[in-house]
């Protein structure tokens, strides 16, 4: 085949593709991403300062501190948000409100149960949350019909007059369980 005809033969298809197809169909690329996650139910319990109570350190977390500082049955300083009640000649009590916040996720539950237990045995002082005495022997139920969200409880510590002056400290362990 003459070279000129060969060149036309080779070039002509290019012209056909260019001019004869008109608007060519858009070129595309595709990909897929398969996503999986297994959702487990969960519950959250945090403690926060009550508007009328003693300021908690690390308020809004699950590990807070209520530091009353130096207090005495008679005279002395009473921290803001703390109430002191003297029951002479037997004992005196300090108390303050605080707020537990309980939330539940991905579980059908209308209420929760909240318990409290002292970390270390204390046979001298009386530790209480609301009207419930809290000991280290077993977890005491504070409520079995708790409503999710924010609630208010009152912590109190009763100190007998017979107790020697010094540091009183302990940890209260709270557990919230979805009903």
């Amino acid at each position, binding site marked *: 085949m003459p*070279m*000129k005809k060969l*060149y*036309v033969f*080779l*070039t002509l298809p*290019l*012209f056909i*593709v*260019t*001019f004869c*197809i*008109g*608007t*060519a*169909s*858009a*070129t*595309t*690329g*595709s*990909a*897929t*991403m*398969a*996503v*999986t*996650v*297994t*959702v*487990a*139910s*969960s*519950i*959250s319990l945090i403690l926060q300062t009550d508007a009328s109570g003693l300021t908690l350190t690390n308020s809004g977390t699950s590990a807070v501190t209520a530091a009353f500082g130096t207090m005495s049955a008679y005279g002395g300083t009473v921290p803001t948000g703390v109430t002191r009640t003297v029951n002479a000649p037997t004992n005196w009590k300090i108390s303050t409100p605080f707020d537990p916040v309980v*939330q*539940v*996720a*991905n*579980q*059908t539950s209308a209420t929760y149960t909240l318990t409290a237990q002292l970390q270390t045995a204390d046979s001298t002082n009386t530790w209480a949350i609301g009207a419930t005495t809290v000991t280290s022997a077993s977890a005491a139920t504070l409520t079995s019909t708790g409503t999710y969200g924010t609630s208010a409880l009152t912590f109190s510590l009763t100190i007998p007059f017979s107790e020697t002056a010094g540091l009183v400290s302990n940890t209260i362990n709270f557990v919230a369980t979805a009903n």
Partner: protein
Amino acid sequence: MLRATKWGMMAALALLAAPGVSGQCLPIVCSLTLTLQSDASGMTLGGSGTSSATLSFGSMQAFGGALPSGATKSVGTTNWTISTPFDVKVTCSNLLTLLPCTLLLTPTYSLTAELQTANAIDTWKIGGVTLNSTSASTLTSNGTYGAVTAYTFALTIPFSESSGTISNQINLLSVCN
């Protein structure tokens, strides 16, 4: 030889100047490849570097629990969100090795994403764009070929949803502009 050169040049000019080519790819000339890959800051994708990837978060919960490396969790008052970045790369391959792709088409592409299966409970997002299964959502209309672009995948799960497995497939499509 000169005649061969002349005809060759005419062919090249025809391809460059042809009105039917502007703004569109010639399917016999160019092809697009869309691949997904793990982002340096994100979770490891299964099938990274291919067009078929998997993103497996495993067991997760709103409060507490484990968090996969590269995943982020944020908890609100009524829902919680898990998210992670991943990378998208669109390349253009010219089947005519003598000419670069950019001479035959605009240097940008559009990228869309669509859920394979309807999900009225959870919220699926890529790059802040909410996805659904009824229509493709545009992630970008001016993507750059060859560039590795990071997008953030996010899944928002309401507290009211029962525990269990959430799964779906996201279909991504790149189209040359």
